[in-house]
C-alpha cells in the first residue's frame, strides 16, 4: 500500500503514562468515568473507616428521618444511617461483581481461546453448550441457581459468573479465530512453542485489550445482576447492607413519600453501572496504543 506512513516508527517506547494522559485529555468522558470508578474502588476498600455511623446499629428513635446535616441520606425504618449503609454496601457489591466477572473472564477467555485455536469437535461441543446457556433467560437462570444452591454470597458470585460465561467464551473464540492463522502464530510454532503456550502466552495477551472493554461493560451488568437478585430476595440477606436490598426495603415506603430510601441506593447503583460502562471504550484506547494514531 502506498498510504502515507502517519505513525512515526521512531517513537520511543516507555511513554505508557504519556499515552494514558493523552487518552484521558482527549476523552473527558473516559476521564470522568475512570475517576468515578477509582472513587468507587476507594470507597469499597476503605468503607469501614468512611461510614459516619454503624451501618447495622438500629435506633428506632431516629427512624425514617429525611436527609439532614446529621444524616446526609436520611435514615431507614430502623433508624439506621442510610449513607453508612450505602457506603458499606459498596464493598460487598463491588466484591461480588469483581469476583464474578473475574471468574467468568478467567474461565471463559481460556476456554474460548482454546476453542478458537483448536476448532473442530471441541469448538462445536463448547459452542453448543454455550448456545444452550444462552437460550435461558439469564436472570431467571441465575435465580434458579441461587435458589438451588442456597442464599449465600458465594452462590451469587457463582451464578453471576456462569451467566456471564457465554459472552467471554464467544468473544475470546472469535478474537482468537481471526488471529490463529496470522504469521506470528505460525512463527511461534516454528519457534518451538507448544500449542498451549501459543494460546496462553501469545494469543491471550493479544486479545486482552478487546476483552477489557467487555470486562468493563460486564462489571456494570454484574452489579445490576447481584442487586437484582437481592432485590427479589434471592441474594444477600438483610440486615447486611447491599444496594439491591436497600432499594427493596426502601420500595415499601415510597408510597408514603419516603423517597430517599430508594433514591440514594438507586443513585449509587446507577452511578456505578454508568462508570463501568463509560470506562469500557476508554479502556480500549488505553490498552491498545494502535487504536488511535
Amino acid at each position: 500500500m502506498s498510504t502515507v506512513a502517519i505513525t512515526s516508527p521512531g517513537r520511543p517506547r516507555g511513554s505508557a503514562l504519556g499515552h494514558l494522559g493523552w487518552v484521558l485529555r482527549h476523552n473527558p468522558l473516559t476521564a470522568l468515568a475512570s475517576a468515578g470508578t477509582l472513587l468507587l474502588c476507594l470507597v469499597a476498600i476503605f468503607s469501614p473507616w468512611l461510614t459516619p455511623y454503624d451501618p447495622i446499629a438500629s435506633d428506632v428513635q431516629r427512624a425514617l428521618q429525611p436527609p439532614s446535616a446529621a444524616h446526609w441520606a436520611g435514615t431507614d425504618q430502623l433508624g439506621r444511617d442510610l449513607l453508612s449503609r450505602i457506603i458499606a454496601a459498596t464493598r460487598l457489591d463491588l466484591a461480588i461483581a469483581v469476583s464474578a466477572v473475574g471468574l467468568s473472564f478467567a474461565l471463559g477467555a481460556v476456554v474460548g481461546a482454546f476453542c478458537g485455536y483448536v476448532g473442530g469437535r471441541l469448538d462445536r461441543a463448547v459452542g453448543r453448550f454455550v448456545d444452550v446457556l444462552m437460550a435461558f433467560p439469564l436472570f431467571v437462570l441465575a435465580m434458579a441457581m441461587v435458589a438451588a444452591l442456597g442464599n449465600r454470597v458465594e452462590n451469587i458470585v457463582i451464578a453471576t459468573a456462569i451467566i456471564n460465561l457465554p459472552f467471554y467464551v464467544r468473544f475470546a473464540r472469535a478474537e482468537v479465530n481471526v488471529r490463529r492463522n496470522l504469521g506470528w502464530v505460525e512463527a511461534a510454532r516454528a519457534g518451538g512453542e507448544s500449542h498451549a503456550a501459543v494460546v496462553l502466552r501469545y494469543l491471550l495477551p493479544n486479545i486482552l485489550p478487546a476483552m477489557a472493554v467487555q470486562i468493563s461493560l460486564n462489571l456494570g451488568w454484574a452489579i445490576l445482576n447481584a442487586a437484582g437478585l437481592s432485590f427479589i430476595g434471592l441474594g444477600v440477606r438483610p440486615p447486611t447492607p447491599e444496594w439491591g436490598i436497600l432499594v427493596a426495603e426502601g420500595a415499601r415506603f415510597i408510597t408514603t413519600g419516603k423517597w430517599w430510601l430508594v433514591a440514594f441506593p438507586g443513585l449509587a447503583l446507577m452511578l456505578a453501572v454508568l462508570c463501568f460502562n463509560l470506562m469500557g471504550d476508554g479502556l480500549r484506547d488505553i490498552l491498545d496504543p494502535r487504536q488511535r494514531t
Partner: protein
Amino acid sequence: MTIPLLRIEDLRVTFSTRNGPVEALRGVSFDLRAGETLGIVGESGSGKSVTAFAATRLLDRAGRIADGRILFRGQDVSRLSDKEMRLLHGAALSMIFQNPRAALNPIRTVGLQLADALRAHAEMSAAAARAKALDLLKAVLIRDPERRLDAYPHELSGGMCQRVMIAIAIACEPALLIADEPTTGLDVTTQKTVMDLLARITAERGMAMILITHDLGLAAQYCGRVAVMEHGRLVEEAEPARLFSAPRHPYTKRLVAASPRLDSTLHDLVAGAAGAPGGAPGGAGVARADAPRPADPAGTPLLLEVRNLVKRYDGAVAVDDVSLAMRRGESLGLVGESGSGKSTMSRLICRLIDASAGDILFDGEAIGAIPARDFHRSRFRRDIQIVFQDPNDSLNPRFSAFDSIAQPVKRLTDLRGAALRARVLESADRSGLPPDLLDRFPHQLSGGQKARIGIARAIAVRPRLLVLDEPTAALDVSVQAVILGLLDRLRRDDDLAFLFVSHDLNVVRMMCDRTIVLQAGRVVEEGPSAALFARPRSAYARELLAAIPHFAPGPPLAAIA
C-alpha cells in the same frame, strides 16, 4: 495553448496526527493533458496516493489541503461544493482502487452495482441500465457477461473483480481515470491482462489516466510520462525511456538500480540500493564472485527430500504429487501464482501442517511421519525455520523485537541468560538490525525493520534449512534489494539451504540455483535457474516470464533467449 485536463499547482497536504501535523505533500505540481497516461511511482510514504486522493477530494478527515490549487478543466476542485464534486465524480473523473474485492459491495450483484453507477449520473430505466451494464462487461472482456451480470463479487476471482471495478469506473465515460495500484495483489498474468485492458480502454475512449504504482516496470510499460515521488515531492518527471535509461535525480537512480530486471544480478541491486532508506548496516557486501560450493562428500544424504507430497483441503487439492530434493546449502526457488500451492508447500515442509499423502525426509529421516501437532518437540524443529511474507503480521504485537528473536532460542536451545542475550544480539546484528531497536514493539518499526526481525528470529536458532515465504513481497524495492543481499550473505556464511517461495520471478532467478515452477499444485517445470529463465520449456513458464513488466532498455525477452 489549451487548458490541461488536470493541473496541480504547488499542492501541499498536511495530516494532523497525535504527534503534530505531518506534511504528506510538500509542493507537488504537474499537468495532465486529455488522453494522456501519467505514471506516478514512488515507495510507500512518498505521497503518491495522497496526490490522487487530494485531486479527487477523497482525503480522509485528518488530511487537509494546506496550499496549492487543483484545476480540473480550469476549474478549482478545492472550491467546489460537495454537490458539484459529486457530479464530477464518476462522470468526469473516477478511481480504481487497489483491492477490488473490498471496493465492491458484497451483497449486490455486479449488474446492479454497474446500474447504480450509470443511473447516478443519467436518467435511465432499469432495463436500459442493465443493457448498458452488459455492454460494459463486454468492454472489459469478461467471459460469459450475461451470467456475470447476476453474480455477486465473492463469486468472481480477483482479476474479474478488478475488471468489474474498471467497468464501473468507465461507466459514465469519465475524462480522467485514476488507478491507484490497480494490480497490486493480482498475479502477474492477471496483472498483464488487466493492464492491457486498461491501456486499450483509455486509448479507445480518449481517457486520461493516472497510474499510481510502486512497480517501475509497470509504469514504464503503460505510461507516456512517469513522475517519481519521494517524501511528498515530485523529484523527476520524464518519458519512461529517458527516465529509466538515464535517470537524473539521485533518488530515481537509486530506485531504478534497486528494481530487479531481466538481467540484473543481486550485486547490481544491492550496490544500487546502498544508501537507500532502510539500508542500515549489514546490508551491503554480497560476495561478487559466485564461487561454487564444494560438492558434498559421497554418501551424504540429501538435506531435504520430498516424495509425492499431496495436500487436500475438504476435497480441493492444494498440492498434487510434488517431489523435490535439496542438497545442503542449496537454494531452491518455488514459483507460481496464487493457488499454485507454493505457500502450502512451504508450510508442509516447515511441518506446520500435515500432508494428506507422501513423505518428507530431512537429513534422511522421515519427518513427515511426525504429526505437525507434535513437531515442536522434535529435534528437527530448530533445523527448519521460516521467514514469513508479511512482516507486519509475522511479529507478535505484544513482544518487543528482542523477545521475538529470543523466544525461539529459549524454546529450541539451551542458551540462557547472557549467552541467550549474546545470541539475540548477534542474530540482530547479522540481520542488519541496530541494537537500539531491540526494545521497540512492532508498531514502532518500519516494514524493512520488521522484515529484519523476522530474519533474525529465524536464523537465531541456527537452522539448516530456511523456508522463505515471499520474504520481500510487502517491501519497497530499495528495501527489498537490501534484504535480498542480506539473505544471500547469510546463506553463504552459514551454509544454509534456502527454499525460496515467491511469485516474483526476477527475484527467484537472482537468489536461487534451481527453480521449480508450480501450477495448480503440480510441478510443471524444474531446472537450473539460469537455463529455466533463459529457455523456459513449458508454456506456463513462458507465459509467466512474458507477463513480468520490465523497463529494460535493451532487447525484449525473446531476444535474450
